[in-house]
């Protein structure tokens, strides 16, 4: 297999930061990390954008199918053929929970497959620290040399200090000072974020308390529907053979649930409360031809279509629920039930 030389370089701080974000979240975390491609073969990651990263609570250090699909899409969207996918997975190394492991690896699409590329954590240790010379060479002539002593002043300041040492120390001190300043700003911002999160928590609790207080003040539970007792009694009176009319609960398709139809006699005094029904009762005893009227309940129409096919015109209202038809007296349309 051809030698593939791409490596990923990430600083210890960027890697720690990724672990920090992962440990603060309860679930899989996805994100993007910035960096740059250096030369054609190295890819350096700083803490900000480019590459696609995923933390997973799984034990396999391999790309899942979903991750592969997302990665391909991102390669197209970002027009970055060298897009790197980094995966971090935690696991427990001992049953006691005393030791934990965090593995990380990088993948890149190359030659029609995903291949693992090494991750190099840049640190101080891999920058060779040069050693100081503790003794001079054994040639006093060098120390006495006219040439050396003439040019000496270019390197040394007053006294014995080296200009180079002074310069680099000043720059480093200034850099540390700048870092200190940014650190103070970060600290202020962390406290500001914490304060706002605490404020939000309190506001949400206050709102929740308010709603809860209102709920307990209501007398009836909102779950129980109130029954229209008069209507129920009227229907019972007018259509004693159609118990499905006395329904309070419909299915999603709009059909009555027979088990929940009301069979209670509410003992309503009909002559007092519903005098018009009595009138109707009386007229129903006429020998007017019985007509079948379509029931316009939503969802009933399908059942009625089937009924017509079977040509069963003599069937009376049954208790089967879905195939109920309503008999009405053609002369009294105004009291025929329409839902």
């Amino acid at each position, binding site marked *: 297999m051809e030698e593939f030389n791409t490596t990923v370089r990430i600083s210890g701080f960027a890697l720690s930061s990724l672990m920090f974000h992962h440990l603060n979240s309860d679930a899989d975390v996805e994100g993007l990390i910035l960096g740059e491609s250096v030369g054609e073969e190295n890819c350096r990651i700083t803490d900000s954008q480019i590459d696609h990263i995923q933390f997973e609570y799984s034990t396999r250090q391999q790309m899942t199918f979903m991750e592969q699909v997302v990665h391909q899409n991102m390669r197209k969207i970002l027009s970055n053929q060298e897009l790197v996918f980094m995966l971090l997975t935690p696991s427990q190394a001992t049953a006691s929970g005393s030791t934990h492991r965090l593995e990380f690896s990088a993948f890149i699409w190359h030659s029609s497959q995903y291949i693992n590329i090494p991750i190099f954590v840049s640190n101080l240790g891999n920058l060779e620290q040069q050693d100081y010379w*503790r003794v001079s*060479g054994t040639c006093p002539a060098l120390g006495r040399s006219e040439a050396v002593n003439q040019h000496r002043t270019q390197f040394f300041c007053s006294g014995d200090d080296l200009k180079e040492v002074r310069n680099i120390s000043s720059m480093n001190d200034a850099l540390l000072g700048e870092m200190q300043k940014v650190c103070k700003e970060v600290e202020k911002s962390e406290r500001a974020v914490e304060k*706002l999160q605490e404020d939000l928590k309190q506001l949400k609790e206050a709102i929740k308390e308010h709603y809860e207080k209102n709920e307990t003040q209501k007398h009836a539970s909102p779950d129980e529907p109130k029954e229209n007792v008069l209507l129920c009694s009227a229907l019972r009176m007018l259509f004693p053979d159609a118990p499905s009319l006395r329904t309070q609960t419909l299915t999603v398709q709009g059909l009555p649930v027979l088990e929940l139809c009301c069979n209670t006699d509410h003992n309503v005094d009909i002559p007092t409360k519903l005098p018009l029904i009595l009138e109707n009762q009386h007229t129903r005893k006429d020998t007017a031809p019985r007509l079948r009227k379509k029931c316009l309940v939503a969802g009933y129409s399908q059942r009625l279509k089937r009924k017509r096919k079977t040509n069963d015109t003599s069937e009376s209202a049954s208790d089967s629920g879905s195939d109920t038809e309503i008999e009405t007296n053609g002369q009294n349309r105004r009291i025929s039930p329409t839902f």
Partner: protein
Amino acid sequence: GAGLVSAVHLESDAFLVCMNHALSTEKEEVMGLCIGEVDTNRIVHIHSVIILRRSDKRKDRVEISPEQLSAASTEAEISFELADMTGRPMRVVGWYHSHPHITVWPSHVDVRTQAMYQMMDQGFVGLIFSCFIEDKNTKTGRVLYTCFQSVQAQKGSEYERIEIPIHVVPHEAIGKVCLESAVELPRILCQEEQDTYRRIHSLTHLDPITKIHNGSVFTKNLCSQMSAISGPLLQWLEDRLELNKHSIIKLQKEKERLTQELASL
């Protein structure tokens, strides 16, 4: 056994500082102190860490004597104002060190050192971070961390490690002491380098060429520190600041919305 710790809860921002420190160099072990408190259930809560500076740097081991540890602890407790947000006083409750390129398990020396620290404080815990480990076949990098204490099976016998369960507790905001500790690292490295250089430079028998050479060594070493430590750390701080600024704007909007909602009720 009695007096031993039942578990350690390490806040994630303290973990961040430990990890930063451990990953700062693969050439030598680094060390620091854990700051926190112990509750009545013998659970050690670690809220932050302090990076320790060693006057005697050895590449293969890192531990300091119990006396040095005690002195460092006292100094830390005084100078870092270790009270946390609730005003409870914090103290040094343990130590951590790194194992670059080697197994996470404590060595015999580590176990003995931990035992000595425990003589001063029974609840003292030890943490080890193992890093710069790579599986060459799968090219998977790995970082491990463990928590332990030491026990002696019988009086006079060898000390053995016992495992202490450790959990990293989410802590989204980064605490003040943690931030200050994080930026201490480049300062400590710089001071160590300056000390080394000054000791050498004060040697009187060195000729100018040697001194110029040593000056460039100092420059080179400081540049390495700026490149490997200060630079990435500054980058991370700036990114964190940016992230927080965005969060503040978002949270502020949400706060206004909820305040209005509450007012309208």
